[in-house]
């Protein structure tokens, strides 16, 4: 008696869903959201089953369906190489957020959260020429003061693929320009030149 409205709900969920029902053994989807997934390489399993190579995006759904009331247990078995594992060589650059990766699949599950932590790389500013006090540079909201003795300034690190644009916020009593201050971060680090003259 209790099962029939449940079944109806599931059928409706299936009908409304983009993926087709009927692959796999059951009729309940297991999926969720992913943050920070920008480069392919994320592999998930459900109940230690087949490896699912997740397409790059912000959501995922396992191709294999599970039975109603079956348990699900989502694990990360491989992470993209642009993510930062907790220990070198680890696979946990992406993690299933605790508490949401396991449970009973009553209705289709879309609540599993996978969070990927991206590796970041240095954005270095080389300071050329004489410069005076009060010099400040920005990469958008990231603001750094340049002391008169500084020859190198490290901006906050950014992930591979992120764009940047270094510009002069303040240069009292001096003339400073940034050469090639904009670009896209690679997997090593980028350096831009800040050229100053003080009269």
């Amino acid at each position, binding site marked *: 008696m209790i099962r029939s409205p449940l079944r109806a709900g599931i059928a409706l969920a299936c009908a409304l869903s983009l993926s087709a029902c009927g692959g796999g053994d059951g009729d309940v989807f297991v999926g969720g959201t992913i943050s920070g997934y920008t480069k392919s390489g994320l592999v998930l399993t459900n109940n230690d089953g087949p490896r699912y190579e997740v397409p790059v995006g912000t959501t995922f759904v396992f191709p294999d369906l599970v039975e109603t009331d079956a348990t699900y247990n989502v694990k990360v078995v491989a992470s993209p190489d642009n993510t930062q594992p907790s220990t070198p060589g680890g696979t946990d650059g992406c993690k299933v957020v605790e508490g949401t990766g396991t449970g009973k699949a009553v209705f289709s599950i879309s609540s599993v959260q996978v969070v990927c932590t991206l590796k970041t790389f240095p*954005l270095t500013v080389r300071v050329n020429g004489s410069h005076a006090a009060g010099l400040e540079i920005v990469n*958008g*909201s*990231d603001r750094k003061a340049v002391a008169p003795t500084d020859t190198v300034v490290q901006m906050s690190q950014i992930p591979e693929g992120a764009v940047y*644009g*270094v*510009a002069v916020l303040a240069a009292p009593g001096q003339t400073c320009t940034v050469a090639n201050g904009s670009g896209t971060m690679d997997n090593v680090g980028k350096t831009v030149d800040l050229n100053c003259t003080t009269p």
Partner: protein
Amino acid sequence: MKKSILALCALTVAGGLSACGGGTSSYTIGGVVAGLQYPGLVLQNNLANDLPITPLGRDASGNIQNVTYSFPNEVDYGEPYSVSVKTNPQHQTCSTSSGTADTAGRLSSINAVIVCSLVVNTIGGTVRGLAADGLVLTNGSAGGTFTFTKDATSGAYPSTFTFINGVTYGQTYGVTVLTQPTGQTCSVAGGVGTMDDNKVDTIVVTCVNNS
């Protein structure tokens, strides 16, 4: 019957309401203001009863402290109350969040919550001389990008731009050319600054043909 009324009374008293058993009950209207960092906030109840609220600064952990407030004039049982923002504080916008309007006495406790956040303004400006595809501006790494595309109908390039991502009061912005248009070189003037209380629409991007 009497017993149940007594029980209700006891429950009401336990719930922190005014005395049972006849007479008029009145209620203090108040609550908390969250996120308040700057002076100038004035709250009202029922569009009167101006109440200035002073920020308390940050606690030892660096979190902005909630300010507890209450209006001096109490409201009789059954009368409506409605807390609103009369004047915003400097550099912030405050809005009513929960429990700010009801009838006095309906809830066991009144907590009219006001939430304040720093103002966020857009940045943008004008572009001159753009005559080719490919110009992309960026505001650092986290401020988003702006791509200039030709209008499909008129074939003209836009003469103004506004970044979708706003900039919070006190934060810096720095607009630079991420990608130059084909055959042209563009430079940015007035693209760097620290956000104050007003939107920035004075950035000028000038494009010239490569010789």
